[in-house]
């Protein structure tokens, strides 16, 4: 016998679907939409300690429903088999007419990519005196292309996080942390050389939260090393310091004051002006949390200074403002603006003004949708290699790029232990910047254009226990 849904409920369902589709459509608009940027598209879909396994599309694992209990520990194994198509492996521009793009000989190279990512996470079940968390994932990446420069990009990445909290419930908590990443990244032109790197940050934190824990004071230190496989000039190390104090004046709302500083030291001491040691400082204060049951906000503003030993410095206001609206307990949308600076391989730094939107939805307890898009105005510090005596000409000393990132992902849990994920990533760099390499001997100069478009489509089978 056919069961009919009552008319009021049908109307409500229809209304919710229409509202949902409107939100999705709005987020899909390319220019005004957003999400966080990611320097590496692969790493970009991971989320710190939670990792790929915890990412959208996979139900959050918890002790009740997942994991293998082994004494006082729970282990969560996982395996992801992913197929991906990359439209532009080497981040190259599509050339226009010779008048518009003189000397341009770039052409995007596409390739299918296969990823196999096994991993596991482990944590202890009784974190009263000591809380232990460890997770590792290592993925093999194979480029299925007949071109040698593409197929030689094959390699493996690693993502590992360790955290030990001593007396996590006490008034003073000491945390020991280590984060390791091996990231894979192709160069900016057709070559078998890569920007693959090994990054590690090890450190400790002391958190003081007296009384009921409304007030929290945290001090931390971390030592970072960043070593490339081939690109040795980019190697660096840093000592990082952090101070954070928070006051939870409502259960879901905190005021905070944060200060971070570091001492960065490049391994190379050449005179190109590209690798200048610095001591960046950021001090911000703000509010974060829910202001009603449905509306949350993050507001922070502060001061940032890059403190380079030579060359131009970023010295300006930094901050972030984000407004989130929880449409229903499983649907959340957010819009925000962020201003910050980043140490750059081009010039000393770049300032980044970005707007972003993001939405997370969980439908029918089995389907997860994540939409993320961001638009960045990237302003590099002034840099002219000619002034440094290099045979390189740049189109303009003040480089300004506009970057659009889009990431959409749909995941379906077929059973408790297996799921499917499909996604799309876009990175578009709008830039009129080019670099001209002057070859006096041959007389044939080479041009390198800053703009490019990179599409990636992927699908994966996610197995986890």
């Amino acid at each position: 016998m056919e069961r009919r849904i009552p008319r009021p409920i049908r109307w409500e369902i229809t209304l919710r679907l229409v509202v949902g589709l409107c939100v999705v459509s709005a987020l899909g608009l390319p220019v005004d939409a957003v999400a966080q940027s990611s320097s590496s598209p692969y790493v970009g879909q991971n989320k710190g300690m939670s990792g790929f396994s915890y990412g959208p599309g996979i139900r959050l694992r918890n002790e009740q429903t997942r994991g293998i209990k082994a004494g006082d520990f729970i282990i969560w194994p996982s395996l992801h088999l992913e197929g991906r198509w990359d439209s532009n492996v080497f981040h190259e521009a599509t050339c226009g007419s010779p008048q518009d793009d003189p000397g341009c000989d770039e052409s995007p190279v596409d390739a299918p990519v296969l990823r196999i990512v096994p991993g596991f996470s482990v944590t202890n079940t009784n974190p009263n005196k000591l809380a232990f968390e460890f997770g590792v994932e290592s993925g093999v990446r194979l480029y299925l292309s007949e071109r040698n420069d593409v197929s030689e990009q094959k390699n493996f990445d690693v993502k590992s996080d360790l955290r030990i909290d001593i007396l996590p419930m006490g008034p003073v908590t000491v945390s020991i942390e280590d984060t390791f990443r091996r990231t894979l990244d192709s160069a900016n032109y057709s070559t078998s050389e890569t920007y693959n790197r090994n990054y590690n940050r090890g450190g400790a934190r002391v958190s003081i939260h007296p009384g009921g824990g409304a007030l929290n004071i945290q001090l931390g230190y971390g030592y970072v090393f960043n070593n490339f496989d081939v690109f040795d000039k980019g190697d660096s190390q840093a000592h990082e310091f952090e101070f954070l104090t928070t006051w939870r004046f409502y259960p879901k709302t905190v005021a905070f004051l944060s200060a971070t500083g570091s001492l960065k030291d490049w391994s190379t001491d050449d005179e190109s002006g590209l690798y200048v040691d610095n001591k960046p400082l950021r001090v911000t204060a703000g509010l974060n949390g829910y202001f009603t049951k449905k509306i949350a906000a993050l507001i922070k503003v502060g001061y940032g200074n890059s403190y380079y030993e030579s060359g131009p410095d970023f010295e300006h206001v930094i901050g972030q403002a984000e407004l989130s609206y929880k449409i229903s307990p499983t649907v959340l949308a957010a819009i925000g603006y962020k201003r910050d600076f980043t140490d750059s391989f081009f010039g000393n730094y770049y300032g980044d003004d970005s707007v972003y939107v993001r939405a997370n939805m969980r439908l029918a307890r089995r389907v997860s949708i994540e939409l993320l898009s961001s638009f960045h105005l990237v302003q590099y510090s002034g840099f002219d290699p000619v002034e440094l005596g290099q045979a390189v000409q740049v189109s303009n000393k003040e480089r300004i790029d506009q970057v659009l990132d889009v990431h959409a992902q749909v995941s379906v849990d077929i059973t408790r232990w297996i799921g499917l994920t499909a996604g799309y990533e876009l990175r578009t760099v709008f830039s009129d910047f080019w670099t001209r390499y002057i070859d006096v001997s041959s007389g044939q100069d080479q041009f390198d254009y800053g703009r490019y478009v990179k599409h990636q489509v992927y699908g994966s089978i996610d197995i986890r226990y």
Partner: protein
Amino acid sequence: MISSYQVLITRVRSIRYWIVALVSFGLVFVGPALGQRQPPPKKIAPDQMVLKAQGYVDEMEKVADEGNVLLAEAREEQNIQKLSCLNDTLTAVKGLLRLSEQNFSLMKSHIRKRRKVEHEFVKISIAYTKVRELDGRLRSCSGPTDSGQIDGRPFITVQKDTDLPTEDPLEGLSEIYLNFERPPSASPFF
């Protein structure tokens, strides 16, 4: 010029004010005190007083014995807080019991002198009232019992709206920023 009549009126008014003030004072302070005064004891025979006092002393001894039992239990449990509370209270009970026993001896020796018997009886009665209060304190030192008190942990039911946010606002504030910046396209020297 003030006449003698006006002086008289002024004095009368002053006296009236004093009377009103005294009456008010009496109503405010003395009245309640008088109201709290216990009614005079009924006239009972000295023999009956002795019998009643004997009952009071027996009751006090019983309280002291029960206190000793509780004290032994506390020693076995090695519950310092409970032990301290019982010790203090039991000392007071024993002191009052000893005084009452002395008073009771005097009472019996002056059985022929009604005023003295009555005097000792009042002292024993007061001690008995005090010991009954101390008996309550002894039981509260011992913690929950079966005598009408709650035993075990309280069962707390928390009711909250299902749509309250579950996210912790501190999450994310402590996250470490990992910088995987790559050389941008059109970077010279790479």
